[in-house]
């Protein structure tokens, strides 16, 4: 039987997280289908149909999915579940929201945030903030899986899948979407950026994050933050990198004024190169940084911007 991947999108663009989840699904060795639930999401369907390894795109285009919530998404996925033996979603805040509902209704455990497909029924996943890796084997029956997208390379856009319309499922009517406040930014998304520059408590204020933004703009980098900086109100919650925030694995992660608490490291330690600027020579971040600069960030960051200009950035 085939595997079903639930697409993540905003009705206009298919998120990168989907292509990465497809990459994980392909490794299971079964045909891969994608479910796009949205409204007026034609462009998303086209993009999904191009993902390499995808055989079919199921489309549920309905007002109910314009702003999907867990209850409506779970009902839709369950209406299709008979046709699949594996259901996968990216481990984003939306995938984490609806997929356990699906697993519970199917009476199967969910395997959260897989890092690696060992075989069709065996997976690696992080526990204890990534300080240990668990290898788990699923029992026979349906498998419900969320995928840590930073652990997989996105499927290429070289395919051409068939498209099938599916009916909306009934709305349990117990919850409704009210509104959203999304951070607007011209910069790349944190989880897919090649370079991320993050600030911690050391930045001392939200105003000071502008220094990082200037550098980020030169490098086409995303800006992130430690929990301490978010808790202090310097930047919004969606900046948070860590065990309970976003997990990133860019080519280059620059940690500025971040001491390196375990839960922060959990969110970035799989970055290819880690660079750290901190005035405290003993800061734990230096134990995992490939390149460290012990310096006052208020001098170092403007200097970095200047030097980058000289280098032609």
């Amino acid at each position, binding site marked *: 039987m085939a595997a079903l991947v639930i697409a993540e999108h905003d009705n206009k663009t298919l998120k990168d997280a989907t292509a990465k989840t497809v990459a994980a699904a392909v490794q299971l060795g079964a045909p891969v289908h994608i479910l796009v639930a949205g409204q007026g999401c034609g462009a998303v369907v086209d993009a999904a149909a191009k993902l390499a390894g995808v055989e079919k795109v199921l489309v549920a285009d309905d007002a109910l999915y314009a702003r999907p*919530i*867990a*209850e409506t998404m*779970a009902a839709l996925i369950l209406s299709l579940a008979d046709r699949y033996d594996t259901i996968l979603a990216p481990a*984003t*805040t*939306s995938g*984490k*929201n*609806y997929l*356990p*509902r*699906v697993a*519970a209704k199917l*009476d199967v*455990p*969910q395997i*959260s945030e897989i890092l690696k497909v060992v075989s069709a029924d065996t997976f690696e996943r*992080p*526990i*204890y*903030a*990534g*300080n*240990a*890796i*668990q*290898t*788990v084997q*699923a*029992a026979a029956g349906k498998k419900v899986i969320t995928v840590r997208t930073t652990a997989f390379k996105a499927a290429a856009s070289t395919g051409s899948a068939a498209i099938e319309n599916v009916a909306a499922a009934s709305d*349990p009517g117990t*919850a*409704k*979407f*009210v509104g*959203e406040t999304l*951070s607007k930014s011209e910069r790349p998304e944190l*989880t897919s950026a090649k370079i991320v520059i993050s600030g911690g408590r050391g930045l001392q204020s939200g105003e000071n994050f502008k220094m990082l933004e200037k550098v980020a703009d030169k490098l086409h980098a995303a800006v992130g933050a430690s929990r301490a900086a978010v*808790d202090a109100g310097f930047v*919004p*919650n*969606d900046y948070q990198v860590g065990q*309970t925030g*976003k997990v990133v694995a860019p*080519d*280059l992660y620059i940690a500025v004024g971040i001491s390196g608490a*375990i*839960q922060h490291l959990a969110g970035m*330690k799989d970055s290819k*190169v*880690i*660079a750290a600027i901190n005035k405290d020579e003993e800061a734990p971040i230096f134990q995992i940084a*490939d*390149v*460290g*600069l012990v*310096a006052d960030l208020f001098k170092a960051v403007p200097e970095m911007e200047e*030097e980058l200009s000289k*280098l032609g950035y």
Partner: protein
Amino acid sequence: MKVLVPVKRVIDYNVKVRVKADQSGVDLANVKMSMNPFDEIGVEEAVRLKEKGKASEVIAVSIGPAQASETIRTALAMGADRGILVKTEGDVEPLAVAKILKAICDAENPGLVITGKQAIDDDSNQTGQMLAALLDWPQATFAHKLELGDGKAGVEREIDGGLQTIEVKLPAVLTTDLRLNEPRYASLPNIMKAKKKPIDEKSPADYGVDTTPRLKVLKVSEPPKRQAGTKVKTMSEFLGKLKEAGVL
């Protein structure tokens, strides 16, 4: 309205975990254990609802070994009224936890269940959602702000792009995110008082739930280790190293 708060006993968040040499799990011997930090936020929210007159009773439930009664005592010291300890041995998967909690909800009829969004040991992030599904209740996960209304709740949620507001009919399951509130420290008089509050002892069999794990853990291993690199003295050296590494 009763509020039910599941609390899990986990390794303290400040402890650096060690993987056992035989790869059977992580070493929990002589390690400091505490209440899962997200559950602490759940207890705090429930107690605040009671203080505001919006909740009549706060019930703390823990599913775990005998020592999980200490975790319940912590919740009682923070202001919960009574506890239920469901004694288990070994790991209990989120689905089995959700099934036990469902049975408790069927018996207690709470208007709201507040769970942590994830436990910091298995990092599963499933229990609240599974419980909501089994009860056919709505869910408001990753809660950042809760406004309790008449028969419904407005909840601001932390999502990848920012914040989202939803409205759920009660009864509902809420899961907490970091910034919902700042949990209080229990005062000494309250810790003393908590010792007198009742804790019911149960077993999964009392609820007809089989807690045998459905996933087989083949091994638990150390993640690849990163080595400390070089410390440089100047910004130009710093950028030079990054260029050398091919990431600039």
